[in-house]
């Protein structure tokens, strides 16, 4: 356990008072401190959005990149140095909208990264447009007739793509969320934590009380995490009940584990193979 204040950033927090993001931030700090991963071993990668600002507010290494593109950056960093604990802070627009393609393929690739999606079902930073997870009928300035598109179900989609760790948290349940983040970090492979996060400024549907009425925690004792079919059923719960916890977990080689060159030291720590390079160049001479 590391003193949690070591993760405190001195940078001014810019979220709205009451925003669900504060709970997520707290859970992240708690999880890292519980796992005793010091700030310098952690890299938080994010895209653009309110969620994307997260790494400014927690003291770790940070790469705050482009809107929608956190996952490729995170994957590249992890390949280069797998000693890093890599977390990704993304928004529902960032991860399922602009970054949808990377979400799909990161799941297929299964890098050893933990993805936290701050899912407030709205575009927060750009002031309230519908996001891929907005409910049908949600009215915004840009969607005055209400949203018509079927909401993106990240849990179900992740399962359908063969994700190895799929969980849901709630920013109002910091303790449980911290547990999920810890288990996500410990999972060898890509861990996805979709987090219900009330946006007090732009989402008047999915509010704290709305969630409080619906959420329930999966019983760790009875819930069989490796049952994909059941997980898919749980994934469809939403309007009435919202399950929290690790919905599904399985094992297959993480991306880094499939790469020969990473079997020993992290890529960044390996020696330059000058002799090997010379051999290659000379062989080219001989081959010819």
């Amino acid at each position, binding site marked *: 356990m590391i003193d949690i204040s070591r993760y405190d950033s001195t940078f001014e927090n810019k979220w709205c008072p009451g925003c669900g993001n504060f709970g997520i931030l707290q859970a992240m700090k708690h999880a890292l401190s519980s796992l005793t991963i010091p*700030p310098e071993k952690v890299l938080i990668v994010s895209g653009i959005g309110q969620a994307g600002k997260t790494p400014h507010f927690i003291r770790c290494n940070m790469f*705050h990149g*482009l809107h929608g593109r956190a996952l490729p950056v995170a994957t590249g960093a992890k390949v280069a140095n797998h000693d890093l604990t890599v977390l990704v802070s993304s928004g529902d627009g960032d991860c399922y909208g602009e970054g949808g*393609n990377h979400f799909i*393929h990161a799941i297929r690739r299964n890098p050893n990264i933990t993805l936290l999606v701050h899912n407030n079902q709205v575009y927060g930073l750009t002031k309230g447009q519908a996001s891929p997870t907005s409910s049908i009928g949600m009215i915004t300035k840009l969607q005055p007739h209400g949203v018509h598109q079927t909401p993106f179900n990240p849990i179900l989609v992740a399962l359908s793509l063969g994700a190895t760790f799929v969980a849901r948290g709630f920013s109002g349940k910091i303790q449980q969320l911290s547990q999920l983040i810890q288990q996500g970090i410990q999972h060898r492979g890509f861990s996805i934590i979709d987090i219900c996060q009330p946006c007090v400024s732009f989402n008047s549907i999915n509010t704290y009380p709305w969630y409080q009425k619906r959420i329930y925690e999966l019983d760790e004792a009875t819930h069989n995490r490796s049952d994909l079919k059941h997980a898919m059923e749980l994934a469809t719960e939403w309007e009435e009940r919202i399950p929290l916890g690790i919905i599904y977990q399985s094992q297959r080689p993480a991306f880094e584990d499939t790469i020969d060159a990473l079997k020993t030291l992290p*890529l960044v720590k390996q020696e*330059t193979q*000058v002799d090997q390079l010379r051999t290659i160049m000379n062989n080219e001479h001989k081959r010819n």
Partner: protein
Amino acid sequence: MGIDISIQIGGEAGQGIQTVGQLLSLVCQKAGLYVFAINDYESRVRGGESFLQLRIADRPIDAPYHRLHLLIALDRKAYDLHKSELDDGGLVMIDTEIGVEGDSVFTLPINALAKQAGGLITANTVAASACIGLLGGPLTLLNEVLEDLFGKKEKSVMDKNLMAASLGFKAVQLAKFQWAFSWQEKEPKGIMLDGAQSIALGALASDCRFAAFYPMSPATAIMSYLVSYGQKGLPVVVEQVEDEIAAVNMAIGASFAGVRSMTATSGGGFCLMTEGLGLAAISETPLVIVNAQRPGPATGMATRTAQADLLFAIYASQDEFPRFIFAPGTINEAYDTMQKAFLLSEKYQVPSIVLVDHFFNTSLYIADKPFQVPDRIERFYVTDQEISNPASYLRFQVTPDGISPRALPCNGDALVLVTGNEHSEDGHNSEAIDVRIAMADKRMKKIAAMTKEMKPPESYYGDAEMLLLGWGSSKGAIREAVDILRKYGMDAGCLHFVDIWPFPAQIVADMLKKKKRIVMVEGNMTAQLGRIIKEQTGIAYTHTLLKYDGRPFYPQKIVDQFMQ
């Protein structure tokens, strides 16, 4: 005039054009000749009309020839399409079965001989061998090449091929070919590679350890070479990803974490990378992007060549930031340029863009200098020991030259904070006026030193009163055109640009002062380099010689156009 022979093998994709070309070029290379080959094919997998033009000479050549001395037509269509390109006295070699006749047609029962040798599969060996025979070359060299290629396979394979070689060779014993010459035993002049390969080797020699890519012609071959060399025990990871956006961002992520990283693509893919280019710039993360140009707009012509992305590369991505742009013209230059691109990208913490093209990537060259591997790769980051106080490390510290000491994440106590937003020295977002100005100035300040790193254009008869100016892959063609022009008695020379951006304006202005004619020779419609020169030096080019048909430059055609 010495030896200078062009041999074209034409036929459908899949008919063995590559094999004949490979056999011939290996034989010639072994004989100490210079070879150069271009590949011409449609954007399809089977069928269509392809050809390989092999040029053999006793002096360095890096350009194709505009006429054919020998046409090996693997089908009727190849004959019909290319017979008009035959030089006076040139021959068409074609299978008797195809039934073409004529003065310059030399028929040969290629398939029949192949069957005799043991199977149709050896037809390519028959053809190659007949060709060597026509050229007056020794069969022994071909046999050696066959040994190199098939020596490790079943013995029967080898035997059949040796037989085919001997049959093909005998079949032309009495034939006369005007360009036959006497072959001398010489050492190979250098290794034989295609352009893509030289880029890959250059990247590896730079200790590039990560490459992410999405397949796109003509860039894929670079990755293909990286993958296969990577197998040979190098610490390099090459990952095919979902799209070019992922490719550039993944490369940035790996580079941020400390390994040299690259990606390669072509026009449309480069478009998708432009946002990432800006991210590399503002986050000051080293990054090398190879843009292997092909004609556009949009998908354009996937298997043709162009030099039309220069201005785009210079101005790509919103707002302004320093970047390096290079355009090597030979495989030795490409090998060296990749190393320079990686080195300078890391030294200045700015992106490097290397422009090659379809012609360069797919052509076969002889390297005139060996590919040296440096003893040590100079790296440009700091460790805790070099930072006075790691706890208060500032990733974007303002320094006199604009370069901030770069620490790596997870490499000590210093935390590395980076963002694609405008930021203060500590890496946190900032919108303050003074911070913005300081950071923008800091980034741009690097340009002064970067410009000094730029090699002047290579001058060839640069004192001449008329200069041809070009960049990238047209180097060989332009230099050869100069040779021809000078033979015609004209006072012509050329300048070839490899290091293009930041533009070495002063040097170029000096080189262009008081020239009578400045002729831009470029593979685009608007003389892009010429426009840059005009903007940067105030010196206006006087003529253009532009080509945008998707095909490479031919020296004599440059000359002909020039004379008009």
